[in-house]
């Protein structure tokens, strides 16, 4: 029971960004993918959700189902929700409409009410903002709304791309506590972060992506004490 990436080679056009990476996200808990800017973290997520990046070899399997050649919209139906970097909301639509679009996939239809209640229990702030245009929310609220929208499709696996980017430290704390709550509800979370110390605190397992390859992998607690990680990413 996991989301498995096997020997994945992927990129954009003629440019290869990932040269055969392997990683596995269990059905519950948080796995983090770390790495410097341009290492290929976002490309990994795009390859999993089937957008922009093209896969030339390898496989993406969701609990046995092969997603590698599946169109992007069917992958949402299979149980993947990708919360993109940079809060890609629908700015001229209300928060409610943004959330409704989150449950566009057939798997979420008819459950809108339950899912919405669950999402409000995690993000009480959004309930007050339902009628507001998404583009007029504060940065932190937009990030919350993006994650909430991702949860609306009742995903089995949630891909989070740099959720702490550009947020005030206190808001980052809130976002991280939300991620813990989500993982506790039986959703496998793949967390991509530049804030390595923060990510290692949330995750049970971690991968480090360097120059298109996974160079370090192991339990998060081990990586916190790994000399290479401490030097390169924690500045210790």
């Amino acid at each position, binding site marked *: 029971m996991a989301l498995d990436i096997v020997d994945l080679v992927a990129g954009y056009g003629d440019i290869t960004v990932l040269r055969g990476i392997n990683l596995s996200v269990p059905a519950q808990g948080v796995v983090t993918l770390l790495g410097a800017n341009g290492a290929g973290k976002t490309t990994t997520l795009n390859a999993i959700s089937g957008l922009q990046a093209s896969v030339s070899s390898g496989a993406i399997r969701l609990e046995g189902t092969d997603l590698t050649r599946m169109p992007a919209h069917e992958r949402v139906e299979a149980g993947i929700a*990708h919360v993109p970097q940079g809060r*890609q909301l629908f700015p001229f639509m209300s928060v409610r409409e943004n959330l409704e679009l*989150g449950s566009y996939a057939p798997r979420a239809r008819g459950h809108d009410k339950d899912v919405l209640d669950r999402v409000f229990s995690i993000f009480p702030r959004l309930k007050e903002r339902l009628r507001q245009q998404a583009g007029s929310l504060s940065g932190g609220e937009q990030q919350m709304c993006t994650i909430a929208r991702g949860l609306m499709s009742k995903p089995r696996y949630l891909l989070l791309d740099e959720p702490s980017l550009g947020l005030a430290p206190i808001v980052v704390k809130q976002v991280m506590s939300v991620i813990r709550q989500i993982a506790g509800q039986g959703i496998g979370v793949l967390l991509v972060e530049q804030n390595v110390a923060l990510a290692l605190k949330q995750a049970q397992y971690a991968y480090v992506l360097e120059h298109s390859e996974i160079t370090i992998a192991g339990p998060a607690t081990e990586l916190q004490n790994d000399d290479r990680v401490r030097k390169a990413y924690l500045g210790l």
Partner: protein
Amino acid sequence: MLDILPQLLVSGLLIGGVYGLLSIGLTLIFGMLRIVNFAQGEFIMFAMFGAFWLHALWGIDPYLSIFIITPVVFGLGQLIERVVIKPILHAPHAMQIFATFGLSVVLQNLALTFWGPDYRSVQTSYTSQSFIVGNVAISATSLYAFLVAFLMAGALMAFLQFSRDGKALRAMVQNRYAASLMGVNTDRLNRLAFGAGVAYAAVAGCILTPIYYTYPTAGVDLIITAFVVVVLGGLGSVAGAMVGGLIIGVTQTLTGFFISVELKDVIALVLFILILLIRPQGLLGRAGMEEVGTK
């Protein structure tokens, strides 16, 4: 001289409604796909020929033929989207113009080949019928066209506002990438939007058959006004297309009577330029929308 004003206003509003109907499909396609469909007039013309032949061969009323022609054009539009529009969706503007303009030339010449250059018209029992209210005469065909125009505009706005796919379409315009991440099949919605856009042209064509002549370049003559209406109302705004249509219709009718028939287009275009000087995004357009949709 002023006692004719109510008549002029009514006539202007009625013709304005038809302008609005001609423009809805154009603004829908631009609003959703960011493609200016230069072949939109040809879809109107094909529907007119369809309505003409259904009437000539089997005596089917042009209003009834809406229910036959619209689904056919809707299907045809989806096919054309797949073949002509999809490959140029993210191409430079010049290439998009060549493709849809080329489509327009092909369709015009198909009509010319099959049906010849003759002007044809459909005579129905209600062609010259009119209702008299007070001292205002209301032409039946124009009134029906006006009513259908508002009905169709209302239906489209309700669809975009409340339905699943309508919301998904609006979302797709604002952020195509994010819409895909929601599980929206953007290829299918592109086909749907183009199909619906040309289906609106088909309805307009059927409605116009009893009022206007049917000939291979009828679409060109009709669509020029529609372009003005779409920009005036705000690119991508359905309500804007209707309001813009009414303004152009009334302006043309009033200047045609009070100033000169030759100048009616000139005055309408001067008004058009003046409005755009004050509101460059059009009457009901949203500033910056034309850039939002390009992602």
